[in-house]
């Protein structure tokens, strides 16, 4: 009896040992795969930074160096002195457009979301349904007419044209409305009984309760201004109003194809830096917004 038990135990041990080996091999393969992919994902960033620190001669070497021989910040100085790029001006323009459009957009979004979530009026659901339906239409379809409209308004090459057409985002209204709906209606009714005005209630109760979402919207909106390319390129492509992404692309469009890549990489690194800072400090909020939207920037 006891012998059988021992044999059984031995068999079991063998099986578990085999399983353990398979498990370890699988783990090793998993890690190798993940680290390889992570390396591929991160490599362009690495290449951007070290290329920006190389001299042009070193960059042109037939056998590339994976780390610059000596760190050379001259490319960055050259970027700031570049007459085609005017980085400081681009930065200020983008910051201005980003801030103004974020603030105005937040006000409009909060008011609309409040109306859709809390107020009773005829046509509310029909209007909301219509707004959601417009989300399906590709933005390029609107751009053709909006170009004519802003032209007729005389807004070409102003900051207005970069801000006003994109103030209303149906998606943000939808996001915030869902958030507002989660706040119990009893709070609103109690506030009404106490004689609180709607706006005060909105300011004191609803906005604080949905702050994380508002922060997500703010970040995505700012990133949108930073990354927008097509519309600014179409309607405000002058030195006084050019935004940063457009400025970066136009400054380094060279027909011969042999641009000074280290300087170009320095400019790209400088444009990417604020995004990295946002990523490092505010990742949580972006991921939250992203996982619900599927939109970029």
């Amino acid at each position, binding site marked *: 009896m006891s012998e059988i038990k021992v044999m059984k135990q031995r068999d079991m041990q063998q099986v578990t040992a085999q399983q353990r080996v398979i498990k370890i091999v*699988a783990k090793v393969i*998993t*890690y190798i795969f*993940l680290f390889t*992919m*992570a390396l*591929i*994902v991160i490599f*362009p960033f690495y*290449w*951007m930074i070290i*290329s920006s620190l190389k001299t042009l001669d070193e*960059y*042109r070497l*037939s056998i590339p160096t994976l780390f610059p021989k000596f760190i050379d910040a001259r490319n960055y100085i050259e970027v700031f002195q570049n007459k085609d790029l005017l980085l400081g001006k681009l930065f200020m323009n983008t910051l201005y457009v980003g801030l103004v459009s974020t603030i105005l957009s937040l*006000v409009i979004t909060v*008011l*609309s979301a*409040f*109306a859709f979530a809390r*107020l*009773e009026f*005829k046509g*509310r659901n029909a*209007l909301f349904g219509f707004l959601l339906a*417009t989300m*399906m*239409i*590709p933005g*390029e*379809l*609107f751009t*053709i*007419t909006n170009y*004519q*409209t802003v*032209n007729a308004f005389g807004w070409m090459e102003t900051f207005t044209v970069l801000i*006003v*057409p994109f103030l*209303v985002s149906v998606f943000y209204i939808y996001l915030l409305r869902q958030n507002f709906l989660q706040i119990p209606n009893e709070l609103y009714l109690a506030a009404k009984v106490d004689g609180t005005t*709607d706006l005060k209630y909105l300011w004191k109760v609803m906005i604080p309760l949905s702050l994380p979402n508002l922060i997500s919207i703010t970040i995505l909106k700012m*990133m949108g201004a930073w990354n927008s390319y*097509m519309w600014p390129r*179409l309607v405000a492509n002058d030195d006084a109003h050019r935004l940063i*992404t457009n400025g970066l*692309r136009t400054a380094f*469009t060279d027909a*011969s*194809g*042999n641009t000074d*890549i280290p300087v*170009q990489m320095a400019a*790209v690194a400088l444009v*990417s830096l604020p*995004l*990295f800072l*946002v*990523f490092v400090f505010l*990742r949580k909020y972006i991921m939250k917004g*992203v996982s619900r939207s599927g939109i970029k920037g």
Partner: protein
Amino acid sequence: MANESVATKTYFWYEFRKKLSAFAKKIKFDQWKGWIYLSPAIVLILIFTVWPIFNTVRMSLLEGYTTMKEVNGAVFNFGIGNFKRVIDYPGFLTCLKNTVLLTVLTVPISTFLALLIAVCLNSIKLFSRALQTIFFLPYVTNSIAIGMVFAAMFKMIIGGQARPDSVGIVNNVLEALGFDYINWMNAGSEYWANIVVMTVYIVWNALPFKILILLGGLQSVNKQYYDAAKVDGTSRARVFGRITVPLLSPMIAYVVITGFIGGFKEYSSIVGVFGEGMGPVGNAYSLDTMVGFIYRAIGKQEGTASAAALILFAIIFVVTMINLYVSNKKTHY
């Protein structure tokens, strides 16, 4: 004395409020309040969303429409000539081909890779957070700026000799692995090489969003299914095919649909890598897309642009419907 005045004041305000609310009731203020709150949004939507919808359809149906001609008082025939012109125009077929090719290549590759990475990330504990952060990094980037980095990685720097001064880091890796270097995107490069460059970049760019969604899905899957499979001694491949994929099917459907929509609107990533020429030097617009076609017609050929935009909308709509239909049949729950 002071007390009395406070009392009068309070009473006054009380009366005032009562009158105000009576007045509000009389004009049915509550009914209008919603519309007042919505008014800024509605005004902007009417101008920048509703009017464009009507106007695009109108312009697309007026043959040979341009704003210039309309301002000068030209009259246009009503018809579908714009659509015919768009389809007959040889450049448009190039755009359509590039758009479809890039979408069909990048959506399956990026979805599969993202699924694999998400499953692997979900199965490990050590370094899990750090790796997640790295995989999310490409999301928070500027597609034009990083496109320029990819261009630098694939581009050769031509010198005086037969062999370029530098063949670019990607070719360096290829040579280290024993292959010949390839002209990926310099002047005289071939179409397939350009498409490979774009596919690599678009997939790289698309991964973080897909990983985020799929990993979120995996983390919400009930662990009981896996425990049951473990008890039955099911193989890993079978667990992946029979449990993971079916349970994740709603998320997979979501990333595939958004991937298709994004793919058909591909534009700025190509501008990032190849510049506004949308092609290698000497072969401009060989990588043009539908959106590129529309953008270049804006302000010049509005009738054609509108027709092309409506065609794009129709394609996206049909593809989304097909995707939804298929995923409804295949989706587990």
